[in-house]
Every structure is written in structure tokens, then in C-alpha cells.
């Protein structure tokens, strides 16, 4: 049997990406030097990734990328960077044998399953964590910054970044970006794909810097002392990629209401198609507000916010703190006094959580385990919506739901008028029937994988533990497959995925991986037709 895929070419390009991963690794290294943290985790990782990268590149000095090689390259890249990103966590816990001492032997990330989970959760911008204790006592600032940085790198897409800077990817670049970018298809903004990739990364970088400046200005203005420069940078790095990691144990609850309000529009922007920002910057702002996907996206979040705000305002919190939750009765009393019957807090908590979940960011400005079932089920539903196509958000993507709703309406119309021909329209454009079919199969596949995944996680929890409620299992699956992050119960916003067995964690690493790449580019690798024909 002869392989019809040039795996060497794909791996060679994975090598190029790994080699260049050394550059962003220098940032936590600098931070480590500044704070006087041990530098071993980063120095060793830089050496490792450069060596692995150069080694892989030698497999094929002149790689040629065709569509099939593209799928393999993208899928393998995401797995490889996650493995590299796990190395600093492992070195932190174990040290380098015979060279350095462990920095923090207690770290939960010493377990390879946990380290890989945290790394994959970072790069896929999921934001689900297995960090036991989130504080600077348990982990150095440089390690915590690396955790934030992985999300920023993964947000706009590590392959898109590679296309932007690696000249050898100019030919197959569109194919690669297509396999990686969220949503059906990419929009080429400029004749050269590398310029398109640079434009997207430029808009991404610009918004990130703007958010950091705004957040830090709160500290300078004396509004929010908790928003130190470190925190401003750390949260800037995880808002725009819809990541959700926070070096604060209480996530965004640690900050003032003003800071929370500032983060909301940035999460909205992160879930918006970045091509639209490019149009705004090139002097065509109507493209943003006239875009039907954007309108539908804002409308969905607005509706969700209004309903949840109403529920919270009317007192839709749980009656008593359930046993084993991440909060106690005192916390429940505090939030009840703060929210119920109060307009601004109800609106702020509802808007922040609705936006955070729809865009799949996964930040929390309160422990929404304290919400009653109606509001919680709305959030579970929101986990499937997702951001826009071409955004950094995960899950199914708003545009797919929009197309599905429209084609269902068409179906109803053609039932009454069998001869009528109705193309599905998205704004002014019509959508190709093949694209509609692709959207249907993706969404169906997503839902099937969700239920099968939830079933497997549940079986594994029966075998080993922990004891999980149905809502907890469903939310954990939806949150990892959709790259959302927090779920409900033990995996709630202030909780962690630590209690799961190693097998479950590896399984969820897979869910995050295929969720980020939108399933098809990974699943196609599992078919024999892909390899042999």
C-alpha cells in the first residue's frame, strides 16, 4: 500500500512552526529574568523546540503543500505546539533531571495528562484549567504569563501567523488558513494571502494593545488597584483570543465593575469576524454594521443578556448553596444582596456571562453556579452558539446557525410551493448549496460528537469518579468541544477539571483539538481514503 500523502512535507512545515515558537517563548523568559524567577523551564523549552523544529525541517528541505498535506500539517501543528507548551509546566514541577531542582514539586501540572490538558486548553483558547491553586505563591509569574500567552498565540491561529511570516507558505497558505480558520471558508482580503494573514494579525494585535492600555489606565486613574500592569497584560492576552485564562483565582470577579464593563466590548470584538475590522480600518465602516452575521450575533447576545438580566433581577438564584460547590452560603448571601432588584449589577452579570459564553471566552465575573436552573440552562444553550466566522471564537459559529435557520425557512416554503427556487441568502450574497450541505453536516457532526463525548465522559466517571451530575457532564463536554472553558458544578468558573481521570483528560484534550480545528480537518485524517487514494 502506497501512501498518497506527502507526510514529510507536512512534518517539515510543522518543524518550521516549532522552530519559530522559540520567539514567543522569549517573552516569559524576559519576564522570568525581571521577576528573578528560575529561567530553566523556558531556556530548556526553547532549546527543545528549536532542535525538534530543525530536525523535522530536515525531513523535506523543500516542502510542497497540497490540500491533503495542508490538513495533516494543520492538525499536526496544533498537537505539536500543545506538547511543546506543556514542557515548561513539566519542568516547573520536576526540574530537569541532574541539572536543576524542581521549582514547585506540588504543582498539579507535574502529571503529564494535566500539563498537556493545560497546554491544549491554552492554545485552543478553551480556558478550562487543571491548575489546582491559582496564585503567585503556587506558580511563578513567568509560568502564569506563558499560560496566558499560549492563548494569545492560538487565538488568531498559529498557522495563520505562520502564513503571515513564513514566505514558503505563500502558495498553500490559503489552504492552510482554510483548514484552521473558524467558520466556513476564509475571505481573502488582499491578492496575497500573506498580506491577508498579516492584516488579520495586525487587527488582532491592535485590539489587544488597546485593551491592555485601557485596563492599565484604570489602575493609573486609581479606579481599580487590582488591575496591575501584569494583570492588564495577562487579561489583554486572553480576551482577544476568547481564551478565558486568568491569573486571578476569582477570574474577573477580582476586578471593579468598570474593568468588567471595559472587557465586555472587547469580548464582543473578539467574537466578530476580523475581516470586518479590516474593512473598517480601510475606510468602509458600513461593512461592519451592515453585515448580517454581525447583526444576528449582536442580536443573539442582546436577547440572551436581556432574558438573563430579567431572571437575575427577579431573584433567579439557587435557594441554598449545594454541598461540594465552589461557593458557600455566605457567598450566596453576598451576591443575592448585590444583584436581586438591582439594575446595574443584574445587567452587568448577565451581559458579561452571556457575552463570555457566546463568544466562548469563558471569563466569569461571578460564580454562576449560584444561578438557578433557568439561567444556567440558558448558558448551556449559549455554549453551542459560538462567535462569528473568521473570529477567534469557538463552538458551532453564529453564521452556521443563521444559515440553518434560513434554510429551514426555505424548506417550509418549498413544502407549500414545490417548484419554487430559493437560494439561501446571507446579506446580499447567496450561499452555494454545497456550502449549505457542508454546514448541515458539520453541525450534525458537532452535535453527535457532543453526545457521544458526553456519554464516554460519563462512563469514565462511573468507572473512576468523580461523581458527576448530568448537567456537569454535558457542560464539561460542551465547554471543551466548543473551546468555552468553564461549565457547571465542579467544572464551574471557579472550579477546575482536576478531578477527572487521566483518560478523561486525554479525551478532552482531543475534544479541544478537534473543536478548535472544526472537526473535519482532523476527522479526515482518520479515513483510509485520505491516506491511500
Amino acid at each position, binding site marked *: 500500500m502506497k501512501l498518497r500523502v506527502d507526510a514529510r512535507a507536512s512534518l517539515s512545515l510543522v518543524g518550521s512552526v516549532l522552530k519559530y515558537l522559540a520567539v514567543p517563548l522569549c517573552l516569559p523568559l524576559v519576564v522570568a529574568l525581571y521577576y528573578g524567577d528560575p529561567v530553566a523551564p523556558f531556556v530548556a523549552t526553547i532549546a527543545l523546540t528549536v532542535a525538534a523544529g530543525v530536525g523535522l525541517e530536515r525531513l523535506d528541505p523543500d516542502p510542497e503543500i497540497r490540500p491533503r498535506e495542508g490538513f495533516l500539517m494543520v492538525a499536526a501543528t496544533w498537537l505539536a505546539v500543545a506538547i511543546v507548551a506543556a514542557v515548561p509546566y513539566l519542568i516547573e514541577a520536576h526540574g530537569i533531571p541532574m541539572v536543576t531542582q524542581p521549582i514547585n514539586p506540588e504543582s498539579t501540572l507535574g502529571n503529564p495528562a494535566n500539563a498537556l490538558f493545560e497546554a491544549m486548553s491554552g492554545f485552543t483558547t478553551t480556558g478550562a484549567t487543571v491548575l489546582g491553586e491559582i496564585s503567585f505563591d503556587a506558580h511563578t509569574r513567568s509560568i502564569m504569563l506563558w499560560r496566558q500567552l499560549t492563548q494569545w498565540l492560538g487565538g488568531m491561529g498559529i498557522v495563520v501567523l505562520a502564513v503571515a511570516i513564513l514566505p514558503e507558505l505563500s502558495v498553500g497558505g490559503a489552504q492552510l488558513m482554510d483548514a484552521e480558520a473558524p467558520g466556513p471558508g476564509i475571505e481573502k482580503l488582499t491578492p496575497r494571502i500573506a498580506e491577508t494573514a498579516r492584516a488579520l494579525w495586525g487587527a488582532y494585535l491592535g485590539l489587544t494593545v488597546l485593551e491592555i492600555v485601557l485596563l492599565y489606565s484604570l489602575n493609573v486613574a486609581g479606579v481599580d488597584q487590582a488591575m496591575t500592569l501584569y494583570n492588564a497584560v495577562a487579561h489583554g492576552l486572553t480576551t482577544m483570543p476568547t481564551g478565558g485564562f486568568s491569573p486571578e483565582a476569582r477570574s474577573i470577579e477580582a476586578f471593579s465593575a468598570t474593568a468588567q464593563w471595559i472587557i465586555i466590548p472587547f469580548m464582543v470584538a473578539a467574537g466578530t469576524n476580523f475581516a470586518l475590522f479590516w474593512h473598517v480600518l480601510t475606510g468602509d465602516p458600513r461593512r461592519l454594521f451592515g453585515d448580517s452575521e454581525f447583526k444576528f450575533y449582536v442580536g443573539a447576545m442582546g436577547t440572551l443578556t436581556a432574558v438573563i438580566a430579567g431572571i437575575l433581577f427577579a431573584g433567579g438564584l439557587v435557594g441554598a448553596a449545594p454541598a461540594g460547590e465552589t461557593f458557600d452560603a455566605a457567598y450566596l448571601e453576598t451576591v443575592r444582596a448585590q444583584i436581586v432588584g438591582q439594575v446595574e449589577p443584574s445587567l452587568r452579570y448577565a451581559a458579561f456571562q452571556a457575552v463570555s459564553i457566546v463568544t466562548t471566552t469563558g471569563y466569569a465575573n461571578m460564580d454562576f453556579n449560584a444561578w438557578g436552573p433557568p439561567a444556567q440552562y440558558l448558558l448551556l444553550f449559549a455554549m453551542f452558539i459560538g462567535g462569528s466566522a473568521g473570529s477567534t471564537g469557538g463552538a458551532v459559529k453564529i453564521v452556521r446557525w443563521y444559515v440553518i435557520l434560513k434554510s429551514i425557512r426555505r424548506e417550509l416554503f418549498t413544502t407549500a410551493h414545490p417548484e*419554487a*427556487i430559493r437560494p439561501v441568502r446571507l446579506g446580499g450574497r447567496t450561499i452555494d448549496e454545497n456550502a449549505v450541505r457542508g454546514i448541515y453536516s458539520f453541525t450534525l457532526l458537532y452535535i453527535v460528537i457532543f453526545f457521544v463525548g458526553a456519554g464516554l465522559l460519563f462512563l469514565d466517571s462511573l468507572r473512576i469518579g468523580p461523581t458527576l451530575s448530568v448537567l456537569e457532564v454535558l457542560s464539561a463536554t460542551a465547554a471543551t468541544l466548543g473551546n468555552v472553558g468553564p461549565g457547571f458544578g465542579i467544572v464551574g468558573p471557579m472550579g477546575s477539571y482536576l478531578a477527572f481521570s487521566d483518560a478523561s483528560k486525554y479525551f478532552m484534550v482531543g475534544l479541544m483539538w478537534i473543536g478548535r480545528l472544526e472537526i473535519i480537518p482532523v476527522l479526515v485524517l482518520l479515513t483510509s481514503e485520505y491516506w491511500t487514494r
Partner: protein
Amino acid sequence: MRVVIIGAGQVGSSIAADLASAHEVIVVDCDEERTEELNYSLDVLGVTGDGTSVSTLEEAGIGEADMVIASTDDDETNIVVCSTVKAISDAFTIARVKNTEYLRTWERSERAFGVDFMVCTNLLAAESIVRMIGLPAARDVDPFAGGKVQMAEFEVDEESPVANQTVADADRFDSLTFVAILKNGCVEIARGETLIEVGDRVVVIGSPESVREFAGSVAPEESQGTAEEVVIVGGSEIGYHAARLLESRGFKPRLVEQDTDRARDLAERLPQTVVMESDATDIEFLEREHIGDADIVIAALDSDEKNLLVSLLGRRMGVERTIAIIDTNDYVELFETVGVDVGVSPRSVVAEEISRFTREGEAENVALIESDKAEVLEIEVDAESILADRPIHESVADLPDGVVIGAITRDAEFITPRGDTVVEVGDHVVVFADIDVGEEVATRL
């Protein structure tokens, strides 16, 4: 004026016939039989040869020509003819095209392709159909003075409130003037005592509101409800443009097209239209979709016979009004006798438009009645005009017979002309004139 017409098909011949009386006309065609025939049937000179070649054009005397009309059946040929003419002379060029893309290009940069005036067959035909849809029972509608004035032609049937009345009795509509009555194809100027009989056609000029009001009273049963249901049968270019124009006027038409790919293409381009893929002569389909309830059916298939069939089927199912595209000029009258309410011939629409344009001269705007029997002119009054600063009853005495002043607009306001109305310099007057006196009127007003 010396006019060279390239292409002696239906359009070219009928333009030649329109212009022959007043101008020197030379017709070029590569078919010798056609040019021979024209030499005898019309008072024109036929030249045989390829209109895109310089030698043929020179043979036709292009150096002395004032105007060249390219009216072959092929868009590209017509455009090349105009470019060639521009390269060797400075005659005014008119090109006829079918493809609206060429028209769009030409509109963006006048003088593009060396064409001075471009007419698009399909668009013109669609426009003339859509104009009629706004006015039930109207057979022909033309706007003047930037839309402030409308000229319309109506057929009078037994139920019409003006049937068997004199013009003086019928003249009870505000801002509306009866200008002419067409009896058996002859034009009669409307005088107070002229009797309007069943089967006549009346030509009125007035404000759009008054014309609509008149239309409503002429055909009360057809004007019920303003949201008219329009079904277009056939996704030809004319069908497509008609749907597009109707969409832009707020209609939601239905369009039936048999070809799968074409139907899909149209559905993508027409967001407000329900496009159906079916054979329009499938009676079961027509019944299932309740085509009989439609107010208007436009038959725009590519064959005259099918259009007739569709119109008759529609009529029988209860459609109030049928408009059919009829390619062959000679069939128009026949089809209208058999049961098509209005027959529109794209070629004669274009010929009319080109003839109209060549006559415009001193007038701002011109419309032709019954192809060439009379014309309606819009003229801006200057100090030398015999109308200037005089009441109408005085100036009319100086005008030839066969002239009626239909409407006046002053600073974009509509004024109903009556005997004592004083016309001022700068007013726009819309006058109806018999074809024989048209030229004279145009120069003297």
C-alpha cells in the same frame, strides 16, 4: 440630415421607414436581397457590405453623414460599428444593444466605445411593460418633465364612464387634458364636440395622480387594491429586467422559468421575487400555484407562439390582464385581437426610442403615438417662443391645426393649461402634435 443605418432587420427597417420622409437615409446590410428590397419599398439608399469595414462605410458616404445608427442583431457588431465610425468621421453614433452590461459601462463613461447614445432592447421593453403595470388598462405610458407629467393611452370599452360622451362632457378630471382620440388607427385631435366611442383609444396628458385616478375610473374592476400580483412567465432577459424593475417599485413578483440553471441564477439575482422552476404551460402547476388569481401575467418566453399560449391560458384561468412579448412586429395586432391584452414588441420599442431620439432636436423630450402617427413633445419656453408671455387662447391661433397643449410645469409645479393661462419664459410645456406639424411646432415654440 443624412442618416446611415447599419443593419436592415426589423429594427433598422422600421427606423428607416420612420426617418425616410424627413431625412436622407442610407441603409447598410450584408444581405444583398434585403438592401435591394429596401431600395424599392422605401425611399432610401441600400448599400450592401459589412458595416464594420471602413470601405463599406465610405461607400455609404460616412464622410457626410450626420448620424449613424447601428441596429444589427449583434451587440458587439453594433459597438464595433460605432467605434469605427468615430475613428473616421464625427457623425453622431447610436448603438442598439441587448446586454445591459454594455449599457452600464456606457453610462459610467459617456462616449465609451465611441457610442454617443445607447439603447438597450431588453431594458426598454421591460421598462415599457413595467410602466403599464402601474396604470391598469393603460396601453402606453410616457413620463415628461422629470415625472411631473404623464402621457397615457387608454382603450375605451363599454363599461368605461367616458364611453359615448363628448370630450367636453368627459373633461371632468382635475389636472387632466384629453389631447387626442385614436379611431381605427387615425388620430383625431380632441375638440369639445368630439365623441368618444367604444373601441376608441384616448390619449390624455396630466399629473401622474390624475392619470392614475382616470385609469381607476376607466377600469374600476382592475384597480381594486394597490398591491398587484404580477406573474412573469419566462426568465428571458426581458423577464428578468421586468422582475428587477418591479422589485425596485416594491412589488413581489413571481417568475416561472423552465431551465434549472437559469432559474437558480435568477433566484440569486432577484431577492424579492419568488422564482419557480416549471413548465409554464403545465396547467396543473398553474392551478396549484393559483396563477389565475394574479392581476397581471407577463409572458416573456422566447417564442411568440408560447407567449400567446400562456396569455390565453392565463386569461382562461381568470387573470385580469395579460401582457405578451411579441418578437415579430406583424403579430402584435393579431395577438391583441385573439386575446392578449397588450402586446409589446421589443424591436418596435427600440425603433421607436431611436426615432424619438433623432426627432428630439429642439424638444427636451419626445414620445411617439402609435409609432409614427403623432408625437408628444416637451419644450422649454424661451423668449422667442410664440407662447411666451401670452395667454394660451391667443397663441393657439398662431399655431397650426393638430396641436394641443397638454400640460405645463413651472418650477417643477404642475399647472393645468386652460385658455386664460399665461405661459412664462422658462416653463416646460408638453404638447401633442400631429406628425405632419411636429417639426414646425418644435421650431416655433
